[in-house]
C-alpha cells in the first residue's frame, strides 16, 4: 500500500499507517496547537489546500469552515496513498490581550480578554485560547457579546499548563490569541414558553451563566432551572450573583448543590437525583449540559430516556487535554 504524505510549509512529511495528521506532524517536529486529541476542542484546526480529508475529520465544524477546507488534524487519518497539502489556522485567530485575572473562588479564576476585533459569538459557545508559544486550551464563554470583554472561568488544575500559567504568571496586557467560536450549546430565541433546564458541575457553569442571561434578556417567559453541582460548597461560585438574578426573575430557579456539606441554601445529593425531584417530567424541555464528561453524558442519556428530544439536548463536554507519550512540537 502506498504511503500517505502531508505537505506543510513546503516540506513533505510521511505518515505511518493509521497515524493522524496531528500525530505525524508533531512526531516530525512541526508545531500544531492541540489539546483533547479527540475531535472535541477544535484547537488542532488546519486547512487542506489540496487533497482529500475523510468526513470524520470535519464532524462538528461549521459549514463555512468546511467550505474553506478546514479539518481537525487529531482525527484526520487520510486514506492510504493520499497526498495532502495543509496550512495552519492562523487566519482564524484573533489577537487578544488579557485584561484581568481574578479569583471567583479558591479554585476558579475569572479571566477577561479584549480582542483586536469584535468576536462574533453566541453566549455559551467556546473558544480556543492560545498562548504566544502555541499552547492551546478550550474555554467556554461566560460573557454576552454586548459586554465587549470576553469572560472565561478557568479551574486551576494542579500541574495544569494553561490554568497554572493563567493563575501564576499571566498579567494584564499579556498578548494571547483566540480562535473560534465553536459549539452549539447556546440559546436560540423562539419558543419563549418552553421550560429550560441547565445543569453543570465546576466551571461547567461558565457557558450556563451566559446562556441563562441571554435567555432572560431575549424575553424567555418559560421557567428556567439552573442546577450547579460541586463536590463541596467551596466548589460553588457566583452563588450571590445567581441568587440575585433569581430574586429579580420569578421564572428563574437557581439550585446550587453539593455531594457533601449541604446547608439550608445548598442542596445535598447527586445532581441527577435533585433534577428528578425538581423537574420530574422534563419531556418537552430544552436542556443545556456542560462540564466533565461522565456527568454530562450520563445526564444527557437520562434526560433523553425521560422524554427530551435529541434536538432539544445541547451538551458541551469539557474534555481534558491528552498528552502524547513522546510529547513534542507545540507542547
Amino acid at each position, binding site marked *: 500500500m502506498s504511503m500517505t504524505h502531508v505537505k506543510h510549509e513546503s516540506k513533505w512529511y510521511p505518515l505511518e499507517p493509521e497515524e493522524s495528521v496531528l500525530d505525524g506532524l508533531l512526531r516530525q517536529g512541526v508545531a500544531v496547537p492541540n489539546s483533547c486529541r479527540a475531535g472535541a476542542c477544535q484547537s488542532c484546526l488546519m486547512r487542506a489546500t489540496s487533497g482529500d480529508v475523510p468526513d470524520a475529520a470535519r464532524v462538528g465544524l461549521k459549514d463555512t469552515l468546511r467550505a474553506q477546507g478546514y479539518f481537525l488534524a487529531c482525527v484526520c487519518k487520510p486514506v492510504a496513498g493520499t497526498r495532502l497539502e495543509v496550512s495552519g489556522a492562523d487566519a482564524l485567530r484573533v489577537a487578544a490581550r488579557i485584561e484581568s485575572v481574578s479569583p471567583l473562588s479558591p479554585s476558579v479564576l475569572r479571566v477577561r480578554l479584549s480582542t483586536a476585533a469584535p468576536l462574533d459569538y453566541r453566549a455559551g459557545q467556546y473558544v480556543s485560547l492560545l498562548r504566544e508559544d502555541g499552547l492551546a486550551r478550550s474555554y467556554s464563554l461566560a460573557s454576552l457579546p454586548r459586554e465587549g470583554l470576553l469572560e472565561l472561568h478557568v479551574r486551576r488544575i494542579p500541574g495544569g499548563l494553561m490554568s497554572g500559567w493563567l493563575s501564576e504568571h499571566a498579567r494584564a496586557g499579556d498578548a494571547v490569541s483566540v480562535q473560534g467560536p465553536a459549539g452549539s450549546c447556546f440559546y436560540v430565541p423562539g419558543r419563549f414558553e418552553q421550560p429550560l433546564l441547565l445543569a453543570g458541575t465546576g466551571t461547567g457553569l461558565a457557558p450556563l451563566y451566559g446562556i441563562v442571561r441571554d435567555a432572560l434578556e431575549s424575553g424567555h417567559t418559560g421557567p428556567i432551572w439552573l442546577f450547579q453541582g460541586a463536590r463541596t460548597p467551596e466548589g460553588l461560585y457566583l452563588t450571590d450573583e445567581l441568587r440575585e438574578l433569581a430574586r429579580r426573575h420569578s421564572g428563574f430557579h437557581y439550585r446550587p448543590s453539593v455531594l457533601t456539606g449541604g446547608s439550608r441554601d445548598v442542596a445535598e445529593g447527586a445532581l441527577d437525583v435533585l433534577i428528578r425531584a425538581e423537574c420530574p417530567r422534563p419531556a418537552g424541555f430544552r436542556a443545556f449540559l456542560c462540564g466533565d464528561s461522565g456527568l454530562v453524558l450520563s445526564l*444527557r*442519556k437520562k434526560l433523553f*430516556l425521560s422524554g427530551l428530544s*435529541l434536538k432539544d439536548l445541547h451538551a458541551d463536554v469539557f474534555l481534558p487535554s491528552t498528552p502524547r507519550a513522546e510529547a513534542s512540537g507545540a507542547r
Partner: protein
Amino acid sequence: MSTAAQEKSVYEQMGGEPAMAAAVEVFYRKVLSDERISHFFEDVDMERQASKQKAFLTMVTGGPSSYSGKDMRAGHAHLVKRGLNDGHFDAVVEHLRSTLEELGVAAPLVARVLAIAGGARADVLNR
C-alpha cells in the same frame, strides 16, 4: 387498492424523512431502556447512534437507504463477538413493532416492515 398505492414504500406512506426522525426517537429510547440489549448501544456518541438507528429504520421501511447487507455484516461483527444473538435481535424487532404501532402505522404495513427487518437477521448476526 390501486397499483400506485401498492408500489409506495412504507417509508413514503408513513411520511418520509420527518416521520423517520420522530420514529427514531421513540425506537432508540425503547432500545436504550431495555436492559437485555442496552449494553450493545452504550456508545457515548448519541447523535451517531441515533443516526445509525435512523438509517436502519429507513432501510426496513423501504426508504432511500445507504445500508447494504455487506455494511450490516461489517457494522455488527464486533457486537457478534460480544455475544449478540437471536434473543437480542428479537428484542430489537419487538421494539420496532411497538414503535410503529404507537405511531399509528397500519397493521399490514407493520407486518411488511417486520418482514424486511427479519430478513436482515442473517447479516446482523453474521451467519
